[in-house]
């Protein structure tokens, strides 16, 4: 039964769209005639996919994280300033970045859960604070440089027979994906989804709602740190690395059929959404669609995808309504 529910909730649609896009890519450009083309696509998509995993945790538990874009920018700018071209500094700067990401997530989570500020506002405030702080610190032009060792992860790879060059970022992505899937299958992951679905039920069942939601924000902050390592290596240092990433990643997660408001959707689907978005951009590029139309197409597609998904879940509306009626009855019974 779980499987049947999943199909209507949007995991299948996104996989179908992704498959169509990948086939279309093969026809559209000679680059996609061999594995290298797809590996390059994965390499480009890796940061967004990792961000999507982090955002998934937050969204599925019923929140928003609008701060990831500016967090990525802040991380890259801080790393460049701290490393300043010095190879020896790479290791501790990487650790520092992860720590900073986790700290920002922790602050987001604590303000959301303890001060009861809606996460939309908390992370919007965090976005403003981080953006302002980065520019204040750098004056708009980041100083310093990343070390070669730092850039390796985002930029290069290793040779494998048959496949050609496998980027390190793809390996890292694979590790994180496996970790995320296992996490979501475990007790903590399941409870996290339950928090998004019905917070009160989890609370009454003895779940630590505040702690779980904070954990989701910390994971999102960590994912932004990892994405920043990849993007810094791939694209280099600038004060615009993370611009617009927050909306793009929310789009990706929703495209994967994850319900805004929480409680529905799988982590694999969220990543598939991110990959679909990047595949779509690649295809539009190959077809020579200009930058302006690209965003218009993106707009139409996310509306269509979400409309389709909600049309699918309406099949089950009947059941949900019945369930709600039952809940209400139980509540009134409990009150008497």
């Amino acid at each position, binding site marked *: 039964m779980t499987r049947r529910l999943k199909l209507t909730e949007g995991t299948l649609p996104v996989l179908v769209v992704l498959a169509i896009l990948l086939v279309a890519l093969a026809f559209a450009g000679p680059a996609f005639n061999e594995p290298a083309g797809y590996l390059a696509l994965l390499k480009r998509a890796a940061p967004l996919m990792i961000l999507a995993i982090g955002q998934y945790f937050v969204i599925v538990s*019923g*929140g928003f994280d609008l701060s990831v874009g500016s967090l990525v920018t802040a991380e890259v700018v801080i790393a460049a300033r701290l490393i300043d071209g010095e190879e020896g500094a790479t290791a501790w700067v990487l650790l520092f970045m992860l720590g900073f990401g986790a700290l920002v997530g922790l602050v987001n989570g604590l*303000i*959301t859960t303890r*001060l*009861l*500020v*809606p*996460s*939309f*506002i*908390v992370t*919007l*405030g*965090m*976005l*403003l*604070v981080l*953006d*302002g*702080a*980065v*520019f*204040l610190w750098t004056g708009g032009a980041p100083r310093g440089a990343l070390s070669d060792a730092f850039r390796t992860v985002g930029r290069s790879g290793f040779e494998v027979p048959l496949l050609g060059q496998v980027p390190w970022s793809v390996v890292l992505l694979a590790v994180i994906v496996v970790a995320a899937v296992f996490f979501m299958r475990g007790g903590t992951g399941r409870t996290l989804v339950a928090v998004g679905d019905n*917070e009160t039920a989890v609370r009454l069942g003895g779940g630590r709602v505040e702690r779980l939601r904070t954990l989701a924000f910390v994971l999102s902050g960590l994912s932004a740190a990892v994405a920043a390592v990849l993007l810094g290596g791939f694209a280099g240092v600038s004060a615009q690395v993370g611009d617009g990433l927050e*909306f793009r990643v*929310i*789009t990706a997660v*929703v495209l994967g059929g994850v319900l*805004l*408001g929480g409680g529905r959707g799988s982590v694999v689907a969220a990543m598939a959404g991110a990959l679909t978005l990047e595949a779509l951009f690649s295809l539009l590029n190959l077809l020579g669609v*200009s*930058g*302006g*139309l*690209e*965003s*218009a*197409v*993106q*707009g*139409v597609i*996310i*509306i269509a995808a*979400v*409309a389709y998904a*909600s*049309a699918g879940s*309406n099949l089950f509306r009947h059941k949900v309504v019945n369930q709600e009626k039952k809940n209400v009855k139980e509540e*009134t019974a409990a*009150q*008497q």
Partner: protein
Amino acid sequence: MTALAQRPAAPKPPEHDRPKWTQKLTPVVSVYLALVVLLIVGSVLVAVDGGMLLDQGGILNILTRSTTLGLVAIGQTLVILTGKLDLSVAYLIGLCSLIAAETMAGDPGNIVFAVALTLAVAAVVGLVNGLVITRLKVNAFIATLGTALIIRGYLENGYEGPAGEVPRAFQHLGYDRIGPIPISTLLMLALAGLAWWYLGRTRGGYHIYAVGGDEDVARLSGVRTNRTIVKAHVLCSVAAGLAGIFLASRLGSGAPYVGTDAGYDLESIAAVVLGGTLLAGGRGGVAGTIGGVLILATLDTVFDDLGVTPFFKDVVRGVVLIVAVALYARRQVSRRGK
């Protein structure tokens, strides 16, 4: 019904446990108190720096800044009260400034037609937002983000920079004033008054609160919830259209990114929430929003007068937003934020 009658009296809401004087501190009162405090502190700081915050120029500055944001935020208030969001306003403002300026094309005879056309286009965008949300059941966040991307695509494709020309006669709207108060600000306040009257005195306004409070309950009580949501989005877009027209009048031409550069999408949401309206909908109002707008505008002006770098503003704005909402949230523990 008998079951209801037999139930013991509901526990008193937490408001009654608080000391009496804090009960009068509704968000609207708090936001205007904060504004007064900010004006005093700001005046002192600027005076220490050797300037004057509330002279003719300063007041004019605050009010002009408030006008555009105020127009957008009034519309945004209606949408947020229904429990939705509108992220498309920023690009819509740019689009509307272009439509107004290009239709006028420097000819005073076209003014009426251009304004009508711009508002009509804005209304259609709002209608699309509303219908996508209610008929296609797309989450408002995604629906309006999608609309924003579509408008952005159109703007990026068709425009490189400012276009069109506003006739001299129309620029009076942006620059004329009565004493220190710009006419446009008076128009904005009139619109706020109209929205206040609509929300608090008419059936349509009550329906907006009902839908935001609980959509299902509203529907079961006979409110046409879909129609109410569509209406809120249309009104919001028309307000954004007015902001676009006002900006075109100030700039003398249309500018595609005039709305996004100022971040009016998130900024207007911030102003509404700062004004004590619940992001989840159902509680709040226009009076608080105008207070929120004035606070943001005053902060900007104070920082300008002090010569603080513009980036520091963002930091302060973020902190103010979080702190303010945290203070409101303390009194609404029962309604846990989403």
